[in-house]
């Protein structure tokens, strides 16, 4: 538990904000105390990011006021927010990849004389900022050479350098491994010990309990309650968020698996896969666990033909198909839901209908001319079937929420008759309600005889939804476990290479 800090550092009073057609925030009160980690919880669309964007100056509020240290303030641009000591870390980091750590930390505040940067001072200031977060990295290293966890800490260092008093972190742990999360929490504790307040937005309940001081739940644009985290149960929080009883987070319906669907025999690839052999049977969800960098995404891409293999075979229904391009894999009935759905999964400028139809156009066209009718019909069918929340199939996918976008990617493969789905972090960046829906969809798919290879870094999810688990490390399979008999410790041990 961090120190219960002094008085309120920041107060947002009766904040309201509406966009054409939708009320995003309706009279929200939010109090932040110095030195606390205040969790902001709510489903997608509840208003968390809108509230924080108002705080960070990206949006203008329609009504209400913001008070810092007892004085009302006007925040009309990101620069105002920065001057007031409010720093925001979004999921998309705001670092310039081609610049060095030092250059990023001091961006806009470089020590210079007559416009010429004083390099030694730059490095020294950066080194001090890095020490404050306990990150041991060469300040002259380019940021794009660092891992995501280190990049995040550079962002924190950057915020501290600008004398931030409020640090807003939006889903900071979604791309981190368990060890890196602990490092981040250490940094957060250091930072709050010196009086900085942290607003922590995340869906990962276990983490919230570990790092959070208080929690505010938003639902449909209203604040429905603020509680000390020790005083309220997960169930109660979820009930407040979603207004429904979500007792079992992982509604997996296991059944006896059918015939062999996918088999990998001694598969290797230059991208980081070494001698991997595994099977997925019809009706099974096979979990692929491991730390970041274990080679799971690389394996998924090789299975899908997105990256070339250098040895071994891939078989579907017993027939060798070792794909050289995604087309081969798709023809064999494999579909891939990539880790980064915005950058690899969807064409954001196109509509739901067009995204769903992309791999299947050949089947719906004659002489190269697409049958709009058939494409539309297929899209409508899957939108209804998967309950995709969109005003129409002509809506551009860039406007949909994370969970909905994920369903669009899934619909694409179902429309293409995929029998084996490789899902890379299927519920990352998805709110609790949509997560449950996706789990239910996974159940339905396996009920119908499909097989799922699920990569996940959320151990409870791996244990809760898989039938069998393979643990990877350094591109190899380290262990194979039955999910019902496995524990988080055993999986973690294997992932760290400490298995007995």
């Amino acid at each position, binding site marked *: 538990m961090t120190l219960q800090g002094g008085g309120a550092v920041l107060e947002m009073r009766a904040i309201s904000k509406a966009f054409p057609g939708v009320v995003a925030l309706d009279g929200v009160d939010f109090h932040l105390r110095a030195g606390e980690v205040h969790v902001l919880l709510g489903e997608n669309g509840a208003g968390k990011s809108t509230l924080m964007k108002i705080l960070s100056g990206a949006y203008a509020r329609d009504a209400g006021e913001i008070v810092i240290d007892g004085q009302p303030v006007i925040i009309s641009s990101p620069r105002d927010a920065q001057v007031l000591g409010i720093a925001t870390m979004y999921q998309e980091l705001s670092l310039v990849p081609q610049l060095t750590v030092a250059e990023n930390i001091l961006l806009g505040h470089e020590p210079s004389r007559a416009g010429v940067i004083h390099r030694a001072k730059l490095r020294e200031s950066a080194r001090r900022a890095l020490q404050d977060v306990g990150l041991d990295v060469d300040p002259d290293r380019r940021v794009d050479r660092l891992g995501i966890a280190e990049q995040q800490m550079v962002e924190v260092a950057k915020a501290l350098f600008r004398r931030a008093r409020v640090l807003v972190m939006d889903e900071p742990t979604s791309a981190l491994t368990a060890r890196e999360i602990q490092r981040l929490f250490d940094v957060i504790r250091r930072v709050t010990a010196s009086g900085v307040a942290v607003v922590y937005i995340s869906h990962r309940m276990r983490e919230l309990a570990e790092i959070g001081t208080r929690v505010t739940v938003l639902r449909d644009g209203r604040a429905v309650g603020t509680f000390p985290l020790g005083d309220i149960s997960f169930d109660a929080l979820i009930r407040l968020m979603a207004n429904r009883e979500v007792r079992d987070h992982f509604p997996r319906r296991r059944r006896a698996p059918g015939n062999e669907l996918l088999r990998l025999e001694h598969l290797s690839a230059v991208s980081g896969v070494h001698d991997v052999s595994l099977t997925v049977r019809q009706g099974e969800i096979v979990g692929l666990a491991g730390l970041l960098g274990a080679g799971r995404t690389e394996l998924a891409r090789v299975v899908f033909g*997105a990256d070339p293999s250098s040895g071994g075979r891939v078989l579907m229904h017993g027939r060798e198909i070792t794909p050289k391009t*995604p087309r081969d894999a*798709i023809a064999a009935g494999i579909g891939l839901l990539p880790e980064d759905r915005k950058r690899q*999964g969807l064409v*954001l400028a196109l509509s739901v209908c067009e995204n769903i139809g*992309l*791999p299947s*156009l050949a089947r719906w066209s004659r002489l*190269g001319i697409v049958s709009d009718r058939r494409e539309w019909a297929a899209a409508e069918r899957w939108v209804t079937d998967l309950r995709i929340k969109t005003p129409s199939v002509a809506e551009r996918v*860039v406007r949909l929420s994370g969970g909905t976008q994920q369903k669009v990617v899934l619909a694409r493969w179902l429309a293409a008759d995929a029998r084996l789905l490789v899902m890379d972090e299927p519920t990352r960046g998805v709110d609790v309600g949509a997560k449950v829906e996706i789990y239910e969809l996974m159940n339905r798919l396996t009920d119908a005889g499909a097989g799922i290879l699920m990569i996940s870094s959320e151990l409870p999810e791996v244990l809760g939804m898989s039938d069998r688990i393979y643990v990877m490390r350094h591109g190899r399979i380290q262990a194979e476990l039955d999910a019902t008999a496995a524990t988080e410790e055993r999986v973690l041990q294997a992932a760290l290479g400490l298995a007995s």
Partner: protein
Amino acid sequence: MCLLLWALTPHFLTIANALNVMEQTAINAIVAVGMTYVIIAGGIDLSVGSLVAFSGVTLAAALKAGWPAAGAVAVALAVGALSGFVNGAVISFGRLPPFIMTLGMMSVARGAALLFTDGRPISGFGAGFRSIATGRVLGVPAPIVLTLVIYGVAHFGLSRTRFGRYVYGIGGNEEATRLSGVAVRFHKTMVYVVSGVASAVAAVLLTARLNTAQPIAGIMYELDAIAATVIGGTSLSGGEGTLAGTLIGALTMAVLRNGLNLLGVSSFLQQLVIGGVIIVAVLVDLMIKEKRA
């Protein structure tokens, strides 16, 4: 804008003048068809002007050598297609940035045209061939009909075929499109072939109208084509745009030029005004898009 010009000079809104404007813009509009495809796919083609010259002189040489008009036109189209293919293949498989590759091709094709003709123009063709530019179809000048037909076909291709869909996909998010099983490199190559063929068609029209094929023809055509495409609302970063927009963009520029001509504005000032219009048009388009998002 048309109304303003009409107020300033009565000759502007006569049929004769309107037809004149449309004929003038036909060449650029046709080149812009290819440019639109390429830009939507996320690329750029700086070689179109040189390709107009190159296919033009091969066309002329074929005609002079006694080939029938149809055969000569086929030669021109083949030259355009082949050049476009080289562009596309090096860009897609060699992974050269489109700007660099087409810039190089711009020089190569120009040099080839000059070499081929020894730097001299080729003139004097039969009336049959020239009727492509001078003839009329149902009373409408042939170039206008040709432009509309080409736009019709190209629009159909972009909006109703798999190829068109892939063009938007590749421009919008090449990796996601590739992960959907689309043969991205093949289709990217084909897009540049389209551009090459469009340039060749424009060359046919140009040669027929001027009765001459010059190796120095087509200079700066790429800029006009890009301007038409961009004024028409196509985004330079790819994934968005329509041919209807490009046609309007081409017409806008032609109307503007025509109007300024009729007003007796010096051609130097014209250049300034047109440049200004391009900038304003794109700014307005960006603001509209931002409001929508």
